[in-house]
């Protein structure tokens, strides 16, 4: 763990924080508001809360927790489809851990499991393939979800299934792509954003090039960031340096992992197996063109959507939920009407409350101090205005 400790050095953190504070204070004064930086990836959100980074930053910088938590953006209709497949006779439905709790319109996969469906947690799609091999008389379905980070392993699994002639394995594909999503965020009218921390794991697959449009067309800096706390601080500092100099470029802080042009074999596997969907429904963000992928027709035999009858009904998000506004950074999690009362990690209404990468769950679990501080500030302001 020596390797990890170097990225958690409090002395270096202090030095970076000092510089960050100097720059943001200057910028905030110019902007007459805090500097808004979005971390796109849920993994970053998790690290920020886990290491208490948010509490270390000055008030002149505000982190907006973006849409990069694949569990959080999964619409209810797709969860209903999962449950419908899982509840068919003879099906073993396999999924990653934190997808199991996402609420559908009637139930989650966890509830379906309790009701008798054979739902199993796996750590890799290859585990599903092993289960398929061991249970030749059952249909084994893998619930594939995630951005480009998890897409290659799903693609390789499909290729392996084909190579080994395993016919009782199929994929319920909910993989999504990051670029159209960032674009949708940038195009939303209620958005105030000065720069981005780019998603490190996604970039390890796709490289840095795809982000160029953010700098060119939207004039916002992007720094592709690692997940250790020092990575995050250094990346914030790099974004701020660009803003301070009036620049907008794509920089790679995570160059120990992220190659400029991505991972070629991974991209090839993705290209071989998947094609873009015309559109894909996102929780909170609505339908986004070309934001999801599906299996190409050559691989239809492995496509659970073709193998099984799925309801495929679009279910509107609960009207009380403001997940979309939180995802776009228009409101803070605790400003949502149902945060902490109707919507809690035990009984999540919106998906941002489900995964520990979701902004709402993170605030619910770790954000009490921040919420208290805001409450005190508001109370004081109210007293002063009286």
């Amino acid at each position: 763990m020596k390797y990890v400790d170097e990225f958690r050095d409090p002395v270096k953190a202090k030095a970076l924080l000092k510089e960050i504070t100097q720059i943001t204070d200057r910028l905030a004064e110019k902007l007459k508001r805090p500097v808004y930086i979005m971390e796109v990836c849920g993994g970053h959100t998790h690290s920020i809360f886990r290491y208490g980074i948010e509490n270390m930053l000055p008030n002149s910088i505000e982190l907006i927790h973006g849409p990069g938590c694949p569990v959080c953006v999964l619409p209810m209709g797709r969860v209903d489809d999962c449950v419908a497949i899982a509840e068919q006779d003879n099906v073993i439905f396999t999924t990653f851990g934190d997808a199991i709790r996402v609420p559908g319109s009637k139930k989650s996969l966890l509830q379906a499991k309790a009701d008798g469906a054979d739902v199993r947690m796996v750590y890799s799609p290859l585990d599903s393939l092993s289960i398929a091999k061991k249970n030749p008389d059952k249909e084994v379905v893998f619930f594939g979800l995630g951005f480009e980070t998890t897409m290659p392993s799903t693609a390789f699994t499909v290729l392996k299934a084909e190579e080994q002639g395993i016919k009782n394995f199929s994929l319920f594909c909910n993989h999504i792509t990051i670029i159209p999503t960032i674009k949708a965020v940038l195009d939303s009218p209620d958005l105030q954003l000065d720069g981005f921390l780019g998603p490190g794991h996604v970039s390890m697959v796709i490289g840095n090039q795809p982000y160029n449009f953010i700098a060119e067309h939207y004039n916002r800096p992007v720094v592709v960031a690692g997940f250790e706390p020092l990575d995050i601080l250094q990346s914030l500092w790099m974004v701020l340096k660009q803003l301070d100099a009036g620049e907008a470029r794509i920089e790679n802080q995570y160059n120990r992992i992220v190659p400029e042009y991505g991972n070629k074999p991974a991209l090839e596997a993705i290209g071989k197996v998947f094609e873009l969907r015309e559109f894909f429904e996102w929780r909170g963000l609505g339908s986004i063109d070309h934001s999801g992928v599906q299996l190409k027709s050559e691989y239809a035999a492995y496509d659970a959507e073709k193998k099984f009858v799925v309801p495929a009904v679009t279910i509107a998000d609960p009207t009380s939920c403001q997940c979309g506004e939180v995802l776009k950074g228009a409101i803070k999690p605790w400003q949502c009407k149902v945060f902490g009362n109707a919507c809690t990690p035990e009984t999540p209404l919106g998906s941002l409350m489900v995964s520990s990468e979701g902004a709402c769950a993170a605030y619910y679990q770790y954000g009490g101090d921040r919420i208290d501080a805001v409450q005190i500030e508001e109370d004081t302001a109210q007293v002063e205005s009286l």
Partner: protein
Amino acid sequence: MSIDAPLEEVDSRRRKGKLVSKVITLAHGGGGKAMRDLIDDVFVDAFSNPALNTLEDQARFELSDLAKYGDRLAMTTDSYVIDPIFFPGGDIGKIAICGTVNDLAVGGATPLYLTCAMIIEEGMQVETLRKIVKSMADTAKAAGVLIVTGDTKVVERGSCDKIFINTAGVGIIHQDYRLGADKAQATDHILVNGYLGDHGAAILDARGDMCLSTKIESDCAPLQDLIKTLLDAAPNTRFIRDATRGGIASVLNEVAESSNCGIEISEENTPIRTEVKGFCEILGLDPLYLANEGKLVTIVPENEVQAALDAMRAHPLGKESADIGSILTDGRAGRVHMRTCFGGRRIVDMLVGEQLPRIC
């Protein structure tokens, strides 16, 4: 530590049944000869003590014997349903004794007598059952407790997962001890007796789903002797709890709530093995929520901290004892914080549901 079993009861049963079958069948729970043979040959043989050997429907105790240990009776029960039943560092039998002994001991009680009820799935190998029972007998001996009564049920295949064990226990609390989650006071310190999260990580790993080859072993151990050592050294100890399911995070939250105080622990001073940290990093788990089966959290007044630590560290089950934090004087009531190695400060909340690994 030795306990006086009620000696005036005579061993009323001379019979010594012999188990012939190699596999447990429904007949072994049927109440007839097969069951008698199982009880005689497997249980009584291993647990043997005068209170049990009478094989009455209840174990009997002289109140005057119990009163020697203190002025209050402590009673607890727990059921054990672990998968896998044998794991690095222990097995379901060992844990069934440790868990109940520890639940008594953390209340300041001297654990004395345990019950043992088993629900066995038909088809279990008798050899496997013997191994579990031997492990229970050995652990009970080490913990200074007697297993004085029991029950056996055999259920059809599929009705339970191999074996479920319930143990209930009684102990006596010494008149000087008044431990409780509501007794913590500002400036008190929080101590633990060693590395946290070993059991939870060992079990997850032993299930084999992760295909990680670690050498993490469960910390499963009876803590009554360590607790006695601690209480002798720090008699004003406020509270002790074994940090089982939910880990130390859950215990600390309960204290913060019951004692209406704020708690801060230090990540740097919280002992977690490098292997367990790595295991959690890979799976996206938080070791503060991992189960322990041989770790206690104790709250000790500031002036007894050194004595408590010295005593605990001198005990074989407390060599890595550490002072991990304190009760704040100006903390927000009910809230637990961790000062991270990185210099940040984060809330350590109660766990909701089960810890689930993250996608990426």
